[in-house]
Structures are given as structure tokens and as C-alpha cells.
């Protein structure tokens, strides 16, 4: 009959209206900024630099290899390499960036810099409330602003950080094992050379 659909529709909206006051499942509005929804683990916004340990400048993982600067599609990264080297987390002397600027007004959050970094130094942050009223420098993040601790990284991407840490530990263990094996081989060689020097000299051309 004519008008039946209209009556049914109006009953439905009435149910919505009344129901929205009594049942919480109907109103799914998140009252920002008092309440915030948790972002999913894999969400990303702008990059950050990771440092190990308590000191940001000393523990910065970045070695200024400039691969991310070259791979960045909108060219929003600017890196200046240092002249000297300083020891990194495992003690090996590495270059470090004296200047690492990311213009987040240009950055398009493509994550390519993260994918190409061989040192797990640059990762994506989830922070989105970055609006500022300083329109000339406020959106240019420098080295200090970008440096975030490894604990912070664990906080925002727990699963990913755990994987990264495991991988890094593995690499370091492998590197340590290799150096230990190399040291042992060198020591064994030295000991063999020394043992060979104590015995009656074999034909010339032995140890050196």
C-alpha cells in the first residue's frame, strides 16, 4: 500500500533516535580530543631516528650512509656527513650525521627510507598531532627532534621493534662470533707460529 515504506522507514529512524540514548553500541562516536582511538600497530605517519642507550647523540644508529636521502621520492631528507668517526653501539667507529633534516610538509609517508636503511636507524612514527603555527620552520624537523629512543620504538611498534631487536642481536652475535673465530684463528696461527719457532727450524721460508 502507498505510504507503507515511509511508515516503516520512520519507525526505523525512531528506533535509532530512542536507541541512541539507551544503548552504547549505537553511538560509536569517539569524542576527540577527550577520547582517542588506539591506532593500529602498523599505522605510520612521519619518520624518526632510533638511538640505543640513554644518550641520543652517542647512541644514534644512523651512520650517514645517505641511502635514504637518495631514495626518498620527494627529496625531503637532507643529510650532512661528519668529518670524523665515533664508535657506535658495538664499538666500531662509524660516521655520524651532523645534520639530518626531514621536511614533514614534503614527506609523503611512503616508508621507502625505512625499507632501504641497512642499519635499522630510521623508522616510522605514529604521531599525527604535529600541527604548528610556525609556518617557516615548524614543519622542518631536525636531528634532535627526530631522535627517539629504542624504548619509545618498542612502545609504538612492539612487534616490529621486537623483530628488529632480534635481528640486530643476531647480526651482532654473528659479527661477534666471526670476530671471535677470526681472533681464534689469528691466535691459533700465532700460537702455531710461536710453536714452530721453538722447534728446530724447518726448511727456510717457515714463519715470518
Amino acid at each position, binding site marked *: *500500500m*502507498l*505510504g507503507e515504506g*515511509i511508515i516503516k*522507514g*520512520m519507525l*526505523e*529512524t*525512531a528506533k*535509532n*533516535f530512542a536507541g*541512541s*540514548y539507551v544503548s552504547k553500541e*549505537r*553511538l*560509536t*562516536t569517539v*569524542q576527540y580530543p577527550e577520547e582517542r582511538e588506539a591506532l593500529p600497530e602498523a599505522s605510520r605517519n612521519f619518520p624518526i631516528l632510533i638511538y640505543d642507550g640513554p644518550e641520543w647523540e652517542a647512541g644514534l644508529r644512523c651512520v650517514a650512509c645517505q641511502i635514504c636521502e637518495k631514495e626518498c621520492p620527494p627529496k625531503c631528507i637532507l643529510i650532512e656527513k661528519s668529518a670524523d668517526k665515533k664508535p657506535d653501539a658495538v664499538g666500531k667507529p662509524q660516521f655520524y650525521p651532523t645534520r639530518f633534516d626531514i621536511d614533514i610538509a614534503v614527506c609523503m609517508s611512503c616508508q621507502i627510507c625505512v625499507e632501504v636503511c641497512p642499519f635499522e636507524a630510521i623508522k616510522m612514527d605514529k604521531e599525527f598531532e604535529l600541527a604548528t603555527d610556525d609556518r617557516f620552520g615548524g614543519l622542518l624537523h631536525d636531528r634532535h627532534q627526530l631522535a627517539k629512543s629504542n624504548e619509545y620504538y618498542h612502545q609504538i611498534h612492539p612487534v616490529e621493534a621486537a623483530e628488529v631487536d632480534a635481528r640486530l642481536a643476531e647480526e651482532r652475535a654473528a659479527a661477534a662470533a666471526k670476530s671471535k673465530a677470526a681472533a681464534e684463528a689469528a691466535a691459533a696461527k700465532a700460537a702455531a707460529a710461536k710453536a714452530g719457532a721453538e722447534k728446530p727450524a724447518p726448511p727456510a721460508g717457515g714463519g715470518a
Partner: protein
Amino acid sequence: MSGMNVPATIDQIFILFTDWVAHFFPAAIRPIVGVVLGVIGIISVFPGLFALTTVFERKGLGRMQNRYGPNRVGPFGFFQPVADGIKALTKEDVVPFRADGVLHFLAPVVLLAAVFMGFAILPVGRNMVLVDMDAGLLFFFAMGASTELSVFMAGWSSRNKYSLLGAMRAVAQMISYEIPLLLSSVVVIMVAGTLSLPKIVEAQAGYTGIWPHWYVFTPWGLAAFLMFGIAATSETNRSPFDLPEGESELVAGYFTEYSGFKFAIFFIAEYLAMFSMSGIATTLFLGGWSAPLSFLNVLPSWFWFFSKVMCFIFIFIWVRGTLPRLRQDQLMNFAWKFVLPFTLLDLFVTALWRFMGEGWARWIVCSAILIAAYVAMGRVGMFRKNFAHRRYRYAE
């Protein structure tokens, strides 16, 4: 003044207040003072109701759509109209370069003036009507017709094809639905025998037992009430008939080129037209200021009038939240092929009602004719649309 009837005093409190104020002035200008106070009352009450209605509408629509409405400004968002008002007043008034300056300025003014005039004959309570005219209802419809001209002026003066299209559509829609609007009120005039609104309310103010004599409780009254409601929704360009001002179609239709306060005036005029239409519908069909049950007459008459008007407003909001927008040709088809024939039939049925005299026979006959006609017209209308199963063709 002991032993005075408290409910009657509260009922007439505004009249008593006006008389008290008028006594401070010399006798010669007392009528003018009375009228001026009435005008001040109208100008303060109805725009205040408008502000309240905008909040109710946004929150009501929000709740119907399972979301909150505005809830930031003031307690539960009820100061939102203040924020909207400040925004409208401080926005830059943009007038297009080649627009017709005089008409562009005059259109909202004429619209607001015509709409405000419609409140002059509305009986808001017992003895509370600004001007008691013998041809009150005719005056109201004359003012309604004047609003169409200003809609056209707004669309034409903007020198914008799309505004003009919107204005033409709006005027066509308003003209088409004006006939059912008038004809459904003619049935009330036929039975009440007068064009004067206070007298129409008094004709409905009787009670049999506790049940009121409202015209909506008669078969022809109910049919006329429904048709009047549909026509009123369309006259004020209200969803589902709001294609001329559809927010997702022609931007804002005929008031696209208006900004700031002029836009606010169009907005106010639309809502005030809604109020005056609701007021007339209440007066004609729902018994104006009389209470629904006889023992409820304790509460003041103006309370009942405004409650009924707000019920209407809630129904307007409810329908807006439920129904999709009608396309222009669907709108016109509906007017000329359903609403108008039904209203004409209702005229005939009302005449039959008066002809048959008192008794239960006329109830049965009139109801039977109207229901049969409604079902028949509905079937005929649906028959022509073949709701075949849609076949989709995808690009290969």
C-alpha cells in the same frame, strides 16, 4: 482579587501584561502600544524558537543517524546558534560583480518581510492574536504567495545559471503545491463557515466527554491534514522536497551566491515559514490552542499551541532524517497526479459530510470513500512502475 482563577490568569498573562503597560500611555495611542508590544513579542519569540530549532534539528538528525549532534558549544551544544549567529554576522558579504545589486539586496528583505507578516493572524492563545481579520486565512496564503517572488529575485539577481535553475525549480515546486495547500484548507473553511482563524479555533474548542472536536479526528479532516502536511513540507522547501536547495545538488540552489548575514536571513525565513505553516496547520486541524483532553485545559492555551507547533517541527525533522530527496519530476508528478486529485476528492467528501447531517452513517461513508480512493490511487501509481529485477552489465 482573591479567589481569582489561577489557570485563567496564567492563560491570559500576556494580555494582562500588555494592558498594564498600555495604561502608562495616553488613551489615544493605547491601541498602537498594544500592537507594538504584540509585534515585539512575535519578533522575539519566533526567532528564539528558530535558534532552538536549529539545535534540535542538528542533534535530532544526529541521533537518528546514530551520532551525536553538536555538543561542544555550551551545555550539550545548546549555544550552537550563538556561534552560528556570530559566524553569519562576521562573514564577508560577497556580491558577485555582475550581479544585480538592488535585487540581490532586496530579495532576502522581501522574503523575511513576507514571512513575518504570516504571523500576524495566528491565534497563539485564547484572545491572543495580533490582528483579528475576517479574511485571516486568505491573508496568510497571500503572504505565502509573495515569498515565491523573492525566491525568484534571489535566483535571478545572482547572475548564475545554476542559481537561476534552482530558483525556477523552487518557484515551480511552490506553485504546484500551492493548490493542494489551499484546497485542503478550503475543506476546513467549508465546515467552520468562516475565514477568520480565531473563529475556526473556537469551532474546534468543544468537547464530547473528554474527546476534543478537532477536525483531524474526522475522516475528511485527517485526509486534508495529511495533504496539507505534504504541501506545507513542499512549500517551505523542506526535505524530502528540498531539491532546489539540495546541499549536494545545486550547492545551495537559489541562494548560492549569498554569504554571511543574507544567507542567515534566508535560513531564518525558511524556518519561520515552517513555523507559520505549522501554526496554520495546528489552527486548522489540531484545534489551535485547545487542549487535547478536556481536563487538561488547566494548562495555559499558549502552552498547548506551542507544544503542537513543536510536535510538528519534530515530525518535520523526523521526516527529513528518514526520507531521501525527491527528484524534480517525481516531485511534480506527485503533486499533480496524487495530491491534487486526492484533495479535490476530499472537497467532495466534505460536502457529502455536511450534506448527510449528524449521525454515524456519514463517518462510515466518508471514511470508506477516502480509504478506497487512497488505495486505488496508490495501486495505479505503483502499477506503472515496473520494479523489475535490475540487470547489471559490467565492462569487459
